[in-house]
């Protein structure tokens, strides 16, 4: 594990130096990423310009959901987002060269093109978390305060697993990257909002089938002091890390299976 982190930092650092060759492009990309994140938030502000509550939730509450989801997605994307390029590596035969190094291919693809732009989403969402917390007017208890880092960590873990699953899927369907986006970027999109607005059936699906509810919804209900519309036991509010762990095991299995059955292209 320590070795993997060492290699990860080494590779990421090398790509950073590589990116430093094009400073103007990097600054522009970093800025656009940040602006894009703010525009997403602007969309929420536009919605709330017309209504004080969305699905029963206030603006600071939705901002809290938006920010916690955004931070989890940003951290997962920064560290692992490029694994979705697996399909390209298979198509171009470059996965073969990655397999020749004494370092796992997942690590190599995850660090690929590592550059400052990846931070573009993290800073704005972190700012929004602070802003939303200041407007929330919550009675902070130790348990509430402890739930916040727990949900962020669980969210990161869930998105890590989703990204690896999305990559592993491309071992089976090489051109399937965009379909996999529906769980990675789709997951990032729905968790910005209170999941209850999508209806009870969707909420059940997002709890039991594709457990995106554990990214931030379930723990946020506890932090915001709201009842669970599905009436699930209190334990579910704190289950994020457990769900993340289960998904991580599934993702690791899928990745290994895919790699083992990998059929390299002709030459």
């Amino acid at each position: 594990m320590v070795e993997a982190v060492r290699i990860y930092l080494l590779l990421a650092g090398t790509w950073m130096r590589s990116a430093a060759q094009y400073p103007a492009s990097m600054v522009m990309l970093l800025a656009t990423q940040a602006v894009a994140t703010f525009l997403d938030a602007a969309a929420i502000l536009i919605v709330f310009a017309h209504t004080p509550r969305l699905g029963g939730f206030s603006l600071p509450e939705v901002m809290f959901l938006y920010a916690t989801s955004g931070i989890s997605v940003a951290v997962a994307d920064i560290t692992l987002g490029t694994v979705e390029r697996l399909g390209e590596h298979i198509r171009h035969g470059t996965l073969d060269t990655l397999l020749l190094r004494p370092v796992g291919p997942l690590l190599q693809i995850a660090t690929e093109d590592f550059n400052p732009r990846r931070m573009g989403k993290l800073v704005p969402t972190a700012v929004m978390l602070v802003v939303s917390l200041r407007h929330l007017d919550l009675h902070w208890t130790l348990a509430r305060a402890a739930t916040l880092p727990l949900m962020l960590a669980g969210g990161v873990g869930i998105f890590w697993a989703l990204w690896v699953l999305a990559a592993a899927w491309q071992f089976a369907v090489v051109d399937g990257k965009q379909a996999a986006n529906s769980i990675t970027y789709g997951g990032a999109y729905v968790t910005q909002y209170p999941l209850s607005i999508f209806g009870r059936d969707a909420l059940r699906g997002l709890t039991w089938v594709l457990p995106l509810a554990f990214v931030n919804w379930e723990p946020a209900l506890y932090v915001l002091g709201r009842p669970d519309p599905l009436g699930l036991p209190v334990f579910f509010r704190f289950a994020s890390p457990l769900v993340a762990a289960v998904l991580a095991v599934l993702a690791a299995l899928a990745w290994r299976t895919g790699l083992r059955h990998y059929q390299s292209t002709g030459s």
Partner: protein
Amino acid sequence: MRLYAWIAAYALRRYSTYRVAALSATFTNTIFGFMRAGVLIALWHARPSLGGYDVTDAVTFSFLTQALIEPVRIFGGSLDLTERIRTGDISIDLHRPVDLQGWWLADDLGRAGFALFSRGVPPLLGGALVFSLRWPSSPATWAAFAGSVLLAMLVSFGLRYLISLTVFWLHDDRGVNGISLITSMFFSGMIVPLVVFPGRLGTVAQLLPWAALIQMPADVFLGRRTDLLHVYAFQGGWAAVLLAAGRLLTMTARRRLVVNGG
């Protein structure tokens, strides 16, 4: 003219070979249609006749947006033309007895034509399976919608052609591509319909070329705009301005290429 028709037909065939990729993308477009519809339904629950839309309009709008993503390339980005500019192959193209802008326009229309069916139909069908959507009430509305989509494709090409040509001066298109993605997403009404944009922001957004990409065809589709002359004049006007700007920039680029010797 025959040549351009051939270029368009060739592009259509070329794009139709990537079936799995198209299928996989259209699947995600449809899923996103449901998610966006969910958000808009919640908003229209709180404000039933917001922006003159009712819930059915808003839901239809979500799926229509997803259907038009690829035909009008809402995510922006440059044409494959940039690659030819970067490698210098462009100097060969400029010496061909074919108009550069015309060539790429034909190519892009071929691409858009394939996208209209492969990427446009499934999200609408998917949406119709779950929700009752608002369909055009008469064949005339369908025809008006078709004309509006065609004009939207021209505007989209006009924008992307200009972006592609900036590579002549900037050498790296990633930055401009990023900016084009953001402006196009936000000002087309993709994230939130333009009818919901408040106050002056809404007025300005309705006048920008990106309004011609999705908001206008959607309003024609929903039967909210029957003043076709105005709609077409707006879309056609922007298309003409953008295409003319593209011509001018092509000429400047050509002169620059001649002066600098490629």
